[in-house]
């Protein structure tokens, strides 16, 4: 009995030190987890700013009007890849939202940092296959709703 009591009394401090040490480690791990989450991920504001898009309303004058939307989309993609290169093209992420073959007007969505480059690249391309084309930028808007207003405006000046 005495021997067991002595053993317990001797082991108690060691056990309490062990428990205290484990709790300290746990606290340190939790704070590290919180810090690494803050550094690795963007805040909601940063994520919203990064997603900034611009909607480019354009008119496409064609010598031989092309009725198929996918051909026009393919021409835009090829022209941008030639002008910007594959890397810049993937950063700009252009996407043809709408194109009317009858009116020759459409809406192209691009990253907001790439508007000038996209307009310049498409302005330099004057051929689609065997026919001549002219890409006329009408307006650049931040929302699709505002872009729709300019789709049917007769005037193409800024």
């Amino acid at each position, binding site marked *: 009995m005495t021997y067991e009591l002595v053993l317990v009394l001797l082991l108690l401090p060691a056990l309490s030190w062990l428990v205290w040490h484990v709790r300290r480690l746990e606290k340190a791990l939790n704070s590290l987890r919180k810090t690494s989450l803050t550094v690795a991920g963007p805040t909601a504001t940063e994520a919203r700013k990064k997603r900034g898009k611009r909607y480019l309303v354009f008119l496409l*004058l064609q*010598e031989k009007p092309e009725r198929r939307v996918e051909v026009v989309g393919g021409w835009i993609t090829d022209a941008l890849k030639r002008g910007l290169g594959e890397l810049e093209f993937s950063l700009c992420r252009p996407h043809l939202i709408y194109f009317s073959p009858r009116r020759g007007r459409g809406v192209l969505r691009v990253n907001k940092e790439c*508007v*000038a*480059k996209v*307009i*310049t690249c498409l*302005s*330099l391309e*004057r*051929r689609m296959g065997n026919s*001549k*084309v*002219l*890409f*006329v*930028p009408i307006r650049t808007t931040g929302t699709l709703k505002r872009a729709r207003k300019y789709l049917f405006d*007769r*005037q*193409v*000046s*800024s």
Partner: protein
Amino acid sequence: MLVAPSSEIGLKTIASIARRMGYRAIGVDVDLCPPSLLKEGSKSAPRLVLFPAKRIRASSPAEAKAALRGLGRQVIVIGIPENRETFRFMSRDSRFDFVEASPELVSEVDSGEAGLLTLSGAYLSFSLKNVVGSYRGLHTFGELVARCRRLSIPLRLYSTAGNEFEMWHPRQVYFLLKLFGAGKEVLLESLSLPAISEKLRRVSVQLDL
């Protein structure tokens, strides 16, 4: 904007599209389109001013002087030099309203050239036809813009369009210059013709437009 259509129908199409694009005045090359057609062309776009422009290509100062003889003050004169000597002559001569820098002569645009243009009151110009379909042309255009910025040379751009598919919308020119680092004042000035507007008014009145 300067255009060079070869027919009346071409001029009418260009004039109507130019008006929709927001241009208030365009120059028409009289070698390809005689002045008599300007009146017909102006009917398709009533609020657009069409003024005659003469492009003089010369490989020597003597050739340029001979071309200027008998020209009078009825046209806007654009000089297209083919070598350095003619480039300097045209920049010095006040009869030239614009001196067009070809891609080969971009390296000749220096402080001396800037001084000559300031004295004569002419503008340095560049045809955007050199840029379309040629990345080398784009490279020389970028070099020209950088030199003009550094030396404060007024630069004017035009399309020299032969048909409606060779025209440039003002926004296209704006973004092209912006991409090459031109400042806001240069961007707006390159799209307008403030200093020769007096001559334009005189020329367009004489044509009864």
